[in-house]
């Protein structure tokens, strides 16, 4: 009769009809799997490397120009007598920031990403080949200035510190929730300028941060003319003496971890 409805199946053409039926047979596999990008595997490897050497690794993130490098310079001046510090710097171009850190007498490796707007675990892993961890207490990873993409890339760090500069808007935590939720500490940097920056309301910034559902502390620093670093140094000392096992909230684990 017809050759499409299957009613003329014979021994001769049965295999063809079978193939046609197979093409229409679907099977749905129900899965429940968190997708872990290749980056996260390398990040775990980096973290294991830090733990093996007892190094506290801190990922420092912010907008460009919020004061990360200047804060590191002041921090090194305050702490290098008591702790062995090293820095991995991330920028698209130039060696400028690593040079500034080395001028403080501390080892620094510069990653120039070219066009990548964030550091990833693989880049950090390569940088570690040039940075022996033996004897180090504290490693800062100064990320590329960017409040978007770096938040999604675990580098193997133990803590995320995000700078919010007094010259920025006090609603930044609301505008960049993924980044500010990832922070274990928020630093209100260049706080010595608050007196002339009437639009910035620290209470509004804190409320916006609190609205992200975590206990994340927000502290002030001034790192230039008259360094005011007490709260920041106290937080660092606390982290240096606390157990390292608590990794920061990473995007795929937020449903499981509790707030620190």
């Amino acid at each position, binding site marked *: 009769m017809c050759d499409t409805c299957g009613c003329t199946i014979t021994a001769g053409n049965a295999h063809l009809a079978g193939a046609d*039926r197979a093409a229409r047979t679907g099977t749905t596999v129900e899965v429940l799997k968190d*997708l872990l990008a290749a980056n996260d595997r390398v990040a775990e490897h980096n973290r294991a490397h830090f733990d093996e050497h007892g190094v506290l690794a801190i990922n420092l993130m912010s907008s460009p120009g919020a004061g990360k490098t200047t804060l590191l310079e002041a921090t090194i001046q305050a702490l290098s007598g008591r702790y062995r510090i090293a820095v991995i710097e991330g920028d698209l171009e130039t060696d400028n920031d690593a040079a500034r850190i080395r001028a403080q007498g501390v080892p620094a490796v510069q990653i120039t990403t070219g066009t990548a707007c964030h550091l990833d675990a693989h880049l950090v892993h390569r940088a570690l080949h040039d940075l022996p961890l033996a004897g180090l207490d504290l490693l800062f990873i100064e990320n590329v200035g960017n409040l978007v*993409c770096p938040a999604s890339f675990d580098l193997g760090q133990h803590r995320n510190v995000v700078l919010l500069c007094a010259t920025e808007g006090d609603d930044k935590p609301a505008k960049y929730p993924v980044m500010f939720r990832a922070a274990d500490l928020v630093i209100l940097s260049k706080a010595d300028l608050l007196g002339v920056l009437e639009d910035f309301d620290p209470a509004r910034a804190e409320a*916006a941060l609190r609205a992200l*559902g975590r206990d994340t502390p927000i502290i002030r620093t001034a790192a230039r003319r008259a360094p005011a670093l007490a709260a920041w140094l106290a937080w660092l000392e606390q982290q240096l003496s606390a157990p390292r096992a608590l990794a920061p909230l990473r995007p795929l684990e937020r449903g499981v971890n509790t707030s620190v």
Partner: protein
Amino acid sequence: MAFASDQVPCVRRGVRVHELSICQALIDEVAKIAASVDARTVGRITLEVGPLSGVEPELLARAFEVARTGTCAAEAELSIAVPDIVVRCSDCDATSPAQVNRLLCASCGGYRTRVLEGDGLKLRAVELDVPEAPPAALH
């Protein structure tokens, strides 16, 4: 949240590294599942992309078109669901809906909350074309 390629410099031809990397992991996982049931091709892939996951669904869809070329998922359709954000309050134990930048408890207003739904990136289902055993020869 939408990253138009003219607004965000790290988006090139509609693709961002983060989403491309996720797609590569996704296709690896789908390939494993397909191989485990001897499937020849993949039909539809269902993903859940939380608003707080740091992944942008539109960029993920575009990255998928690039990443699937020459793989078992070359003809696959990507279906992306965006779940609502749900939080549980550590103070009053209530479960309530929330927004990306307002994760407070709707019941007591407290900020000590945990995200139950909405920050994950999950592979939910894969539709596969599985070859049937050929029918017994008809006499």
